[in-house]
């Protein structure tokens, strides 16, 4: 009988809390959008599944050994942890968690070992998180793979479009200001680091957003990653109204010069030029842009095809699987079901919208200065969201003139936006660390 009680107490239903129940629904919703609606399925299928796994009640798959000890431990382990963390013997779990958070690394390691001595261990998803994200490795490896998949030809044929990639990053910084503003008005409680991590959603680049969030605001990582990938998938809904509102029919009909052919050598040299500029002016972006340039050099140099193919296939796929599950581990109820998440979703949407608008407007502004006219519809592609945003530019262009194919032209600002948001990431990491 005792065993039946234990089995029942071990069952998920016994442990199920309303928060976990909601998060399970969120997980299934993400899977539904990913599978049925095709929302960035490569990431949202693993993230959604990770979300469900990390909210399995009583399993603690996303817990550290210490968190497991708090959640499932009895008196004995509480007392041992209390001693390690310097608390009274009748301490509560919440107090222990608070003490742990403020303890030095050395004490945290000790507490971890105490939990281990009592038979608790890190959950599977936490292990994936530690190895893939906390180490910084997974987003960087994916960025390398993205580099190996990126063709800078259209950008090199028309380097001016880099300005559009810069302009669209305004969405990032406007959102940072918005997040700080909400906090100063007392509506939200975002630190400057949180604000920066939220802003990067406007960069419309998944690995960059995850990388920044893992450094500046690990607790918000789940919500930020979900917002970033969801809005990237929603680009075909978010952007067109803004693009139409800010352009005249004449604007949208502008035909652009055909792009010149770009030589192999230029393509080989471009990642190296970018690398040198990063090295000289922006070392804080060296990890992100360095790996991106490395991937692109593997692709273009033509002598390491096998490495390039592995970076584009086996390696990026493996990393994506674990990155997605690891992001899911940050979708535990107590972290995600917070008013902050609502703020993040609203601000993230704003960031996309502002970035889109700014890209279009700067394109129009550039037309005032130059005689090689740019169709302002390609400005919106500067947010990145490769290649979705470029396709949106093309589609909206075709609505007005069915013979005006903008796709290749839009690929320039599109990949420029990837560089732009990586630069923004570097600046923010550097500045926020100094402000800290």
């Amino acid at each position: 009988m005792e065993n039946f009680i234990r089995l029942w107490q071990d069952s998920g239903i016994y442990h199920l809390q309303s928060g976990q129940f909601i998060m399970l629904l969120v997980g299934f919703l993400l899977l539904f959008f990913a599978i049925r609606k095709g929302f960035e399925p490569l990431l949202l299928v693993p993230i959604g599944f990770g979300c469900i796994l990390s909210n399995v009640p009583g399993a603690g798959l996303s817990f550290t050994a210490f968190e497991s000890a708090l959640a499932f431990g009895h008196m004995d382990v509480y007392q041992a942890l209390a001693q390690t963390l310097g608390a009274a013997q009748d301490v509560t779990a919440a107090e222990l968690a608070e003490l742990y958070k403020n303890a030095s690394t050395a004490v945290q390691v000790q507490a971890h070992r105490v939990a281990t001595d009592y038979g608790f261990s890190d959950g599977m998803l936490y292990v994936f998180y530690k190895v893939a994200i906390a180490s910084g490795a997974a987003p960087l490896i994916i960025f390398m793979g993205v580099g190996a998949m990126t063709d800078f030809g259209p950008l090199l044929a028309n380097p001016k479009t880099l300005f559009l990639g810069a302009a669209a990053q305004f969405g990032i910084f406007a959102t940072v200001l918005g997040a700080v503003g909400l906090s100063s008005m007392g509506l939200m409680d975002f630190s400057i680091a949180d604000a920066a991590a939220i802003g990067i959603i406007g960069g419309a680049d998944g690995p960059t957003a995850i990388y920044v969030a893992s450094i500046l605001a690990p607790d918000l990582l789940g919500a930020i990653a979900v917002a970033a990938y969801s809005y990237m998938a929603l680009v075909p809904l978010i952007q067109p109204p803004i693009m139409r509102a800010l352009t005249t029919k004449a604007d949208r009909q502008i035909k652009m010069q055909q792009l010149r052919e770009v030589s192999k050598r230029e393509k080989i040299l471009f990642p190296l030029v970018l690398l040198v500029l990063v090295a000289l002016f922006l070392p804080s972006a060296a990890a992100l842009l360095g790996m991106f340039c490395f991937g692109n050099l593997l692709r273009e140099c033509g002598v390491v095809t096998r490495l390039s193919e592995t970076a584009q296939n086996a390696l990026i796929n493996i990393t994506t699987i674990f990155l997605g599950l690891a992001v899911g581990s940050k979708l535990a109820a107590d972290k995600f079901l917070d008013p902050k998440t609502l703020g993040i979703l609203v601000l993230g949407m704003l960031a996309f919208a502002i970035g889109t608008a700014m890209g279009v407007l700067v394109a129009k502004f550039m037309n005032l200065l130059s005689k090689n006219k740019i169709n302002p519809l390609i400005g919106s592609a500067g947010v990145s969201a490769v290649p979705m945003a470029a396709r949106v530019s093309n589609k909206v262009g075709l609505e007005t003139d069915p013979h005006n194919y903008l796709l290749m032209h839009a690929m320039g600002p599109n990949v420029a936006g990837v560089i732009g948001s990586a630069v923004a990431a570097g600046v923010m990491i550097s500045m926020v660390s100094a402000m800290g």
Partner: protein
Amino acid sequence: MQQGVDLMLYGMGTVVVFLAILVVFTTLMSRVVQRFFAEPDVQAAPVRMVESDQGRVDARLLAVIKSALDQHRAKRR
């Protein structure tokens, strides 16, 4: 709040300035390559162009099938 404004001004400034420098150097690099190091690529270009030439598809098809066979044999080894 001040920090947010700072982050926006200096952050956005850096992005614009950095990408502007990148425009300059990229353009410069392209010009240098096109002017001084263009020939081998010009020579190489036709070879590569031919790849999309329909006239040579037959020969290439043979090559593809041959390589497929080679790979297949290698796997059967």
